[in-house]
């Protein structure tokens, strides 16, 4: 990413990392609050419901983190493609295919022990997601087909494929809705509350499951892969300067394909969380827009795993807090929740620099000591 107006060195870190994001969030909530007032509800109560709903109890944390899990996956997926200079809008389709892979494994092997099914499922969702991203990656690398268009097209193709499979092939016999049969419980990802109970911690039941741990592992993996391995180095070189890559003997096309495949694999893990973790059957529409929102997650997280984890948490909180809002407040509909989410993305994401100059100059001392750099 291009660093916009490299910040003066002598702004305290708490301003850049704490105060400015806070100011942005505050602005988002103030505007959203206005909307709440307009529909005739109490904005402060709404804020409270939202915050409490997202973070107020162990249960709300569970839900928030469960949503965040999906966003971590799709955010990382977008980010890794971005590091290679590619804009992967296909997270949605890749997530669907990942889910398909997990589903097939679970349907086929759910009578096998979990220790076998789990790695198989991981491999399957990564492979299926990767395969769905591989094709656009390959076409970009070898044929110059713009990855933005092809990934959009592949989203449509993925849902056509899923609809076909669930209606014609995988639908459970005697079943009315386009869903597969439920997997045997042996093939379910353990829930966090069950895992914690096993070690004596009690936690209310939430959809939070083992996939959350996989998401954390994926973040660590992406960090090391991108910044600490030669493959990541090659991908970043291609993304930043393709000529320099050629100069260094790095093949742009190979890395474009690799980055897309990894990106697709990461997006595919949404299927792990949703299908194996929560739904326990293959359904339609489980990808629920996570692939798209992953773009915002990645960009707001500066394409860095730590940033992505934080912004995934923010989005998880927005989803969970928003659900609570719709529950608790009569006049707040699910559409209003969407509006609030949109404003947060607008202010915390797109308008992030709005308060920067003022806040920075407030906290900056001009140092006369520094001499000009240079020879």
């Amino acid at each position: 990413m291009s660093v916009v107006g490299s910040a003066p060195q002598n702004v305290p870190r708490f301003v850049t990392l704490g105060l400015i994001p806070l100011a942005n969030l505050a602005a988002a909530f103030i505007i959203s609050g206005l909307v709440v007032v307009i529909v005739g509800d109490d904005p402060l109560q709404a804020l409270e419901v939202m915050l409490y709903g997202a973070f107020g109890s162990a249960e709300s944390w569970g839900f928030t983190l469960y949503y965040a899990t999906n966003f971590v996956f799709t955010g990382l997926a977008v980010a890794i493609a971005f590091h290679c200079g590619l804009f992967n809008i296909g997270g949605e389709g890749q997530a669907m295919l990942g889910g398909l892979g997990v589903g097939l494994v679970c349907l086929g092997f759910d009578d096998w022990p979990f220790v076998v099914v789990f790695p198989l499922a991981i491999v399957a969702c990564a492979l299926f997601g990767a395969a769905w991203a591989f094709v656009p990656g390959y076409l970009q690398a070898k044929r110059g087909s713009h990855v933005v268009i092809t990934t959009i097209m592949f989203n449509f193709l993925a849902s056509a494929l899923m609809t076909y499979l669930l209606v014609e092939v995988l639908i459970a016999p005697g079943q009315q809705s386009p869903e597969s049969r439920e997997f045997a419980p042996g093939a379910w990802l353990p829930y966090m509350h069950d895992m914690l109970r096993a070690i004596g911690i009690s936690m209310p039941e939430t959809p939070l499951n083992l996939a959350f741990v996989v998401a954390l592992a994926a973040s660590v993996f992406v960090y090391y892969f991108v910044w600490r391995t030669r493959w990541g180095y090659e991908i970043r070189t291609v993304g930043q300067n393709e000529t320099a890559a050629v100069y260094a003997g790095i093949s742009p096309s190979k890395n474009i394909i690799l980055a897309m495949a990894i990106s697709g694999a990461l997006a595919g893990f949404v299927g792990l969380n949703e299908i194996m973790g929560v739904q326990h059957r293959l359904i339609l529409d489980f990808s629920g827009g996570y692939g798209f929102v992953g773009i915002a997650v990645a960009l707001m997280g500066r394409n860095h795993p730590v940033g992505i984890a934080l912004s995934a948490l923010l989005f998880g909180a927005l989803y969970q807090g928003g659900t609570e809002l719709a529950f608790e407040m009569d006049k707040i509909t699910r559409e209003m929740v969407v509006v609030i989410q949109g404003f947060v993305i607008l202010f915390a994401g797109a308008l992030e620099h709005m308060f920067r100059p003022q806040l920075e100059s407030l906290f900056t001392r001009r140092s006369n000591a520094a001499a000009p750099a240079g020879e």
Partner: protein
Amino acid sequence: MADAFLYVLLILDATFRVATPLVLAALAGMFSERSGVIDIGLEGKMLGSAFAAAACASVTGSAWAGLLVGVAAAIALSMLHGFACITHRGNQVVSGMAINIVVAGLAPTLGFAWFHQGGQTPPLSGDARFASLTLPFADATADWPIIGPLYSELISGHNIIVYMAAAAVPIAAWILFRTRFGLRIRAVGENPHAVDTAGISVVAIRYRALIVTGILCGIAGSYLSIAHGAGFARDMTAGKGYLALAALVFGKWKPVPTLFACLLFAFTDALQARLQGADIPGIGVIPVQFIQALPYILTVLLLAGFVGRAIPPKAIGQPYVKER
């Protein structure tokens, strides 16, 4: 033979209707992206203007008033995008997505508050909607061989926005390549530093380009709710903004190729509607999902086969910062 001819004509007729919002939205995107501002928010702007147009038309009973307000709404959203990306140098993709999301929630919310019909606007009829126009002599010439049906079925009988879209392509091309404004838009999208040092404000040019984007998007959205359709329904753009964006890239940011990309999308869409459930000799009935996927498969194949690398405007996506 005559049947086949008419069949093709009717498919083309449908193609025009489906292509209209795509063409307008893609041209809208063209102005924005040519000036260096990515516009992933076409979807939201269209939806916003579809709502505003329908709301206004249903209140005033005038389609023209509706169009005006629809355009105004799209311009307002466009300016919001500009405020975030041009003035505050925010991330253009994030801003576009935020706008899409805000509008997707706001339109039904307002719709519900104003019309109490579940977020929709009341169905429009009469003057509140642009009716199909019968061009002069269309009826008289209808019986002429070939030309008759061509004129009366294909050319005549669309609503005014279809003709606006048809006119928009040459006009947009003319503005972009033959006027001072167009020259500056193209320059600012390729090398904003060159524009700045030529004594022109980069910010002002980009804002103006975004106004044009708003106008075109507004017309596209209005088409959906007060011309082709007759009222607003939530999420009624159904991904057309993204498809328009794809057409723009497909058309390499040039007006005429973009038009053809839109027509291609629309044509395959019209075709797939007619192929669904059709018994294809030797193959039988193909599952409907595969027919529905046809436009997308075709696009991918075309992209891989014939359309070379698309080179976007050089400065696209980067906020303008004075640097060397």
